[in-house]
């Protein structure tokens, strides 16, 4: 792992542009700011082109001889296939509204991280090859040839965009800059230039159904570990089922929740909630990841990985699908699934078996977000909650980029948090809801070797957390995404020590009063529950 500077050093960000023009400033592959190249075995597993050992920091990228032809043909095909791309290439007026909205630009000061300029890296090649003005006037109209240096620049900056879409919120034309990054990454993949942090999970997911490459018995072992912990803390033995045909609901969540802390505590929350409801649901060891790093590779790969969820729903004969606290899964489900693999007509329009609420908005995808499901339960008084058991948590909510901007899921997590916790504080309004700042590690960029760039990109989010930490004593950053749960803890340790990261359903699990439970003495992390008479907020009736 690359050396990471101290926070006070990293916080000194120069926003002064380089002396040379952007076309004449070559990319510098400084360690700590890029991810390792995809390993040949992972590209081979996916039948992706040009598998080889290579490194971005070496001069020779071992590209195929006709790489320019491949990329330009790839761009031509995509301009025809995606009307949106053609529009995004032509319509930008360089108004600059997006320029300072990117967390990577704010945290790095590198002008090529301004969304307008990031897109220009591709647009310049588009102009040169696909517009008359560009062909004739060249650089004068911002057109340039596709050289190897340009390709290297693409790799560096399109894997320095987390596809979070914050910039798109501010674009008066509604240009979806994430889709420009998606296309650029597709083109890079045509000549074998992916990062391993994306290619490895995709290869694993294709082989086993999840990013970590968990086999069925490993999944079972991990969930059973959570079952033991729940019994120790609550005295209640929950009994999850696996691959059960005829279950009413298939539950799909990120595999990170099974494996890595603090996601494992969120997993405990899910298990406890479903047990308490007596929900007729099943886990699948095949549809065993909501996450889909195919989204960060190509449309085809996204489709391939998404298909397993619906294939499994069909095989098991469930009525509908409940999705866990995953981020980018919801972008795939809400914005692409219908035309990739849908509509899922063989499933039923989701209805909560507990409240009878019909989730009409999910009538084509048949997939409901767990915070919608739980918020409905609370709203209809179906849960017995003891929020005082989260008395030690002073909570703020990080809107995970994709649920907020790709599905408008803004109120449900907040509604739940306010019911299961008694101390909830919002971060400043230009850092939450649809204006939320990325964790700095989305888009498949949460690799260790990219830590400096992750900490830079996460600075705006961390800054907002620091504000509520100092003003209100916030010590818990809640979120609904497994990349967040992996990325935010090191971000907090670095910029705002003393703030823990938690899934929403971990806090639900703490507060949920279960039938037949013993008196709880600790929260799901094993931390002793605070004395209700001395904790924040004074005396509490228990």
């Amino acid at each position, binding site marked *: 792992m690359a050396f990471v500077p101290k926070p006070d050093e990293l916080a000194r960000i120069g926003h002064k542009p380089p002396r040379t023009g952007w076309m004449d400033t070559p990319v510098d592959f400084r360690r700590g700011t890029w991810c390792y190249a995809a390993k040949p075995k992972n590209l081979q597993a996916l039948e992706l082109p040009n598998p080889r050992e290579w490194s971005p920091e070496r001069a020779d990228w071992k590209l195929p001889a006709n790489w320019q032809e491949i990329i330009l043909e790839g761009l031509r095909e995509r301009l025809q296939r995606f009307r949106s791309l053609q529009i995004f290439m032509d319509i930008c007026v360089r108004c600059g509204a997006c320029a300072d909205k990117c967390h990577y630009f704010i945290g790095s000061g590198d002008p090529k991280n301004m969304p307008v300029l990031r897109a220009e890296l591709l647009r310049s090649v588009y102009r040169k090859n696909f517009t008359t003005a560009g062909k004739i006037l060249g650089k004068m109209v911002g057109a340039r040839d596709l050289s190897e240096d340009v390709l290297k620049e693409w790799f560096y900056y399109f894997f320095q965009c987390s596809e979070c879409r914050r910039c798109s919120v501010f674009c008066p034309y509604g240009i979806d800059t994430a889709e420009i990054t998606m296309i650029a990454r597709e083109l890079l993949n045509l000549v074998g230039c992916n990062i391993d942090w994306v290619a490895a999970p995709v290869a694993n997911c294709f082989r086993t159904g999840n990013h970590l*490459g968990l086999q069925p018995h*490993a999944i079972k072992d991990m969930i059973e570990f959570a079952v033991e912990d729940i019994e120790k803390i609550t005295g209640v033995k929950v009994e999850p089922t696996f691959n059960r045909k005829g279950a009413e609901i298939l539950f799909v969540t990120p595999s990170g929740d099974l494996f890595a802390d603090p996601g494992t505590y969120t997993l405990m929350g899910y298990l406890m909630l479903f047990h308490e409801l007596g929900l007729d649901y099943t886990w699948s060891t095949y549809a065993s990841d909501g996450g889909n790093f195919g989204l960060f590779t190509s449309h085809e790969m996204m489709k391939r990985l998404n298909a397993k969820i619906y294939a499994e729903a069909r095989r098991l004969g469930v009525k509908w699908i409940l999705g866990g606290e995953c981020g980018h899964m919801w972008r795939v489900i809400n914005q692409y699934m219908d035309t990739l693999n849908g509509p899922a007509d063989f499933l039923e329009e989701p209805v909560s078996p507990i409240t009878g609420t019909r989730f009409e908005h999910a009538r084509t995808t048949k997939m409901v977000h767990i915070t919608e499901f739980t918020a409905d339960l609370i709203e209809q008084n179906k849960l017995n909650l003891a929020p005082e058991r989260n008395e030690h948590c002073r909570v703020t909510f990080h809107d995970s980029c994709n649920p907020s901007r790709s599905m408008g899921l803004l109120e449900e997590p907040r509604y739940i948090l306010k019911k299961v916790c008694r101390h909830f504080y919002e971060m400043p309004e230009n850092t939450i809801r649809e204006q939320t700042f990325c964790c700095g590690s989305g888009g498949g960029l949460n690799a260790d070797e990219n830590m400096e760039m992750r900490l830079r990109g996460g600075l705006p989010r961390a800054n907002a957390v620091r504000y509520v930490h100092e003003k209100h004593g916030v010590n818990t950053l809640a979120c609904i995404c497994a990349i967040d749960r992996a990325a935010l803890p090191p971000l907090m340790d670095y910029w705002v020590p003393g703030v823990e990261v938690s899934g929403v359903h971990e806090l639900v699990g703490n507060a949920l009063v279960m039938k037949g439970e013993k008196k709880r003495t600790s929260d799901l992390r094993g931390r002793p529950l605070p004395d209700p008479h001395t904790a924040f907020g004074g005396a509490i009736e228990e």
Partner: protein
Amino acid sequence: MSGMEFKGLTIDVDEDGFIQDPSLWNKEVAEFFGKTEGIEELTEEHWKVINYLRDYYLEFGIAPMIRKLCKETGYDLKKIYQLFPSGPAKGACKLAGLPKPTGCV
């Protein structure tokens, strides 16, 4: 990928020094990786962790959850950091010849 010279053999490791082919692991390799991590001598306590990781990996194809590692070895996280200064994932798993986990982790 690069090769590390070790007792006349070349062990292929990734950019962070993790073994590429876990089936080539043996006790000498663990000792060698220990040296690269600044651990001069592997004690019984180190081996308890390494052997547990190795056995779990062979059975399940992945590293155990960190909490499970702590529970099964009886060592808390602090103790594991004392034994393996780079921590359970980057230190102990490397010595035990496990590949790096990827994804939302």
